């Protein structure tokens, strides 16, 4: 098309850009949701691992204390087991706090994501349709055939 129809070219390109935007943002939004779920799964796996370590540590500490109680003349040092239990408990709690924070933020994010999804699914196609009608009207008025 010539420079005389630069407005039609520009509007055609704008419409194509809107369509590309719609598909690309939909894909990006899906990936955003996937990333949230991936992190949730990752944190849950970490929490599970530290829960197991905590349980194991508690069992080892209890066994150590039993040994210590049984050997009163030669007390057993169980402080290493106690530290391990304490550390596992702190890390598990730290992960739990992150899980809560992610859940809270995900709830807030869901509102914005829902509005944006609605915009992509409803408003944006309307804008594209209106542009298409304008382009068709301009072409008809100038007797220009669509390219491609």
């Amino acid at each position, binding site marked *: 098309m010539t420079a005389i129809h630069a407005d039609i070219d520009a509007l055609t*390109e*704008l419409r194509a850009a809107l369509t590309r935007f719609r598909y*690309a*943002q939909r894909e990006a*939004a899906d990936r955003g949701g996937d990333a949230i779920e991936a992190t949730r799964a*990752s944190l849950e796996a970490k929490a599970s691992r530290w829960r197991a370590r905590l349980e194991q540590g508690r069992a080892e500490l209890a066994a150590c204390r039993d040994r210590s109680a049984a050997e009163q003349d030669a007390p057993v040092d169980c402080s290493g087991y106690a530290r391990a239990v304490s550390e596992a408990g702190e890390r598990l709690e730290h992960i739990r706090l992150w899980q809560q924070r992610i859940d809270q933020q995900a709830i807030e994010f869901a509102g914005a994501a829902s509005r944006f999804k609605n915009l992509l699914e409803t408003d944006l196609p309307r804008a594209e349709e209106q542009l298409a009608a304008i382009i068709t009207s301009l072409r008809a008025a100038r007797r220009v055939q669509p390219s491609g």
Partner: protein
Amino acid sequence: MPEGYRLPARPDRDGDQQLRLLEDAWEKAVPYWQDDVARQFGTHHWTPLRDESRLYLESLRAMMDLLDTAERDTEY
């Protein structure tokens, strides 16, 4: 999905890039399109689309930042 797995590119950054491309297309169209229909399109379609996209992408960026921080902060 395996623990710690992260998709190769952050969606918020791709989303920002797509919005910039769309804004470029709009800026290129504006000089050729300045009638009442253009103004109505700008008011009813373009401005809400751009503003809502920016809001959403800011929320998405904050969410992705939080996910990255959570992963890093829980690596023991």
